[in-house]
């Protein structure tokens, strides 16, 4: 089913994240986790358990308080801001809980933004952006701006944007929370399709048990600790 999945993409070693403040919050506690290239992984757990924090640390958006995070064998704590930014741009696609689009730009421009940031110049990229928007069912909304679109439509633009630079891993933090069941299912199917066709790694936080069950692997976090790490039998 997933050839090449043996290769380690991400390795977390004793990762801790403590939010400093009047009352420090120990959001991640000694996390050890290895994620292979091409995996389709879901993270579940109660609210406030540290799922988003883990996504941010994994996505190089936030730095762990201690522990080591490896990407393709490289220890990321040595990377400077520029290297991290470049890595995020090339290798990581992020889909947030709220869609987080740039309201001044059209759907097409939002999708193209990661590509613009890469400073590459390729005239075919506009077509690619349009194709991805078609894939998420928005070919008729290319030139609409986020305020003119519904929550579900915006989330789909955000998904398209995450896929734009053909990253090696997509992090999605409750991407379908605001969508109806049918659309959620469609989007999961789309993720799975891309995952199997392009061997793109997906790490998805979700509340929806039935969707989580469709993954290769489910991780459950409670109170900052991994309490379950299950490889789904159907994909083994």
């Amino acid at each position, binding site marked *: 089913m997933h050839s090449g999945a043996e290769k380690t993409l991400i390795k977390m070693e004793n990762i801790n994240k403590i939010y400093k403040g009047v009352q420090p919050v120990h959001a991640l506690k000694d996390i050890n986790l290895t994620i292979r290239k091409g995996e389709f992984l879901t993270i579940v757990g109660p609210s406030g358990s540290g799922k988003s924090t883990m996504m941010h640390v994994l996505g190089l958006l936030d730095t762990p308080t201690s522990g080591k995070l490896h990407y393709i064998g490289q220890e990321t704590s040595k990377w400077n*801001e520029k290297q991290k*930014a470049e890595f995020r741009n090339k290798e990581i696609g992020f889909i947030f809980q709220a869609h*987080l689009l740039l309201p001044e730009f059209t759907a097409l421009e939002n999708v193209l933004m*990661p590509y613009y940031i890469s400073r590459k110049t390729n005239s075919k990229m506009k077509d690619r952006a349009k194709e991805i928007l078609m894939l998420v069912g928005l070919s008729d909304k290319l030139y609409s701006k986020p305020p003119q679109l519904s929550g579900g439509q915006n989330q789909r633009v955000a998904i398209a944007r995450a896929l734009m630079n053909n990253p090696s891993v997509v992090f999605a933090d409750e991407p379908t929370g605001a969508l109806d069941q049918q659309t959620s299912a469609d989007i999961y199917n789309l993720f799975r399709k891309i995952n199997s066709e392009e061997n793109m790694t997906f790490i998805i936080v979700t509340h929806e048990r039935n969707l989580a069950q469709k993954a290769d692997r489910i991780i459950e976090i409670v109170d900052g600790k991994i309490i379950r790490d299950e490889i789904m039998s159907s994909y083994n």
Partner: protein
Amino acid sequence: MRFYELFIAFKYLKANLRQSIIITIAITIGVALIIWIPSINLSFFGDLIDKSVSSAPNITITKELDTFKRNKSSFDLFFADRTLLLKDQVQTRKRNIKSYKQIMNQVKHVEQIEAMAPFVSEQGFIIKAAEERGAQVRGIIPELETKVVDIEKDIIRGGIKNLGINDIVIGVTLAEKLNAEVGDRVTVTGPRGISRNLKVIGIISTGLRSKDEFQVYVSLKSGQQVFDLGNDVNGIGIKIKDIYEANKVAAELREITGLNVDSWMEDNKQILDQINRFKLIIVFINFLIIFSAASSITSVFIMLIASKAKEIGILKSMGAKNHSVMAIFIIQALFLSLLAYVLGIICAKLLLMWYASLIAQAGETFLTSEVPVFRISPQYAVLAFFYSTVTSILASVIPSYQAAKLNPVEAINA
């Protein structure tokens, strides 16, 4: 896209049109004021100086009593002549230069000197029919004088080149008062009652009231006759290459000739001092303008950038680097400041035109007879350029730096 920062910056400029307009207006007002206020005064003084400089020799050599006092040997020399001692009490006598040709020869090697002309200049009366007016009568050799002072540019009717022994050129206001025109005859009378009947061959208008109302030109010969000078002259006018070297050249000529030497800079010292005093005040006023405009621009930028924190976080999560985030805001600031600079120059020009029209409406000006040409002072235009770019960069760099260094999650949650 090579410079996506530009793309985003211009999108933001358009999306935040209101802030863009506020910032532009603030800078525009600053630029306009920084240029307008000094330009009025510098144009006014500059005009006065231009007119004064262009209507008189840069340097004038005359002979005065204190020259004798300073120069012991010539003092003794002249004192030996008892008649001179008596004549010294007569204004006209003590100022005469007997051998102007000799003096001109003495100094002609001086580097800066471009042209020299001897002259007679005394007060007399001009009479036409029942009208009688006091005037400063200047006796000149037209071929020489016009090389020292560009009188010809001020000629509005007739000419001066062919000023002969029976001819006179008079100021335009004086001509009006005398009701004299080119071709008319007027009588010039000196203090000793010697008169000559001369024909008006030209009318001049310098824009300086003192000249237009009181100046007349006659030939050197006529001047010497009317003022009973024999072959003497009152002085030698000199034109030099760099007018701002006038004081230095004057000192050199004083050294060589032992005579009294005046430069236009000394003659116009009051105006020049006034300009310098004024510039000092302007430094202060401009500082206030810059400070108040800069602080308002900064606060607008701080608000603008704070309101974009979330977008900054989004851009950073997609891999935008800190300097790119900063560039997005600095580009906006620079663009607005350049736009405001152009608008500010236009406003300053309009304000100057408006001010000129006010003066024109008021009619009379006191030192010059026409409204001066109000020009934008290049010096202050440059200052305003630096003001507009530097303040906008400073106003945007600090808040955008602070926003850019937030980590993406913090920025998104801000």
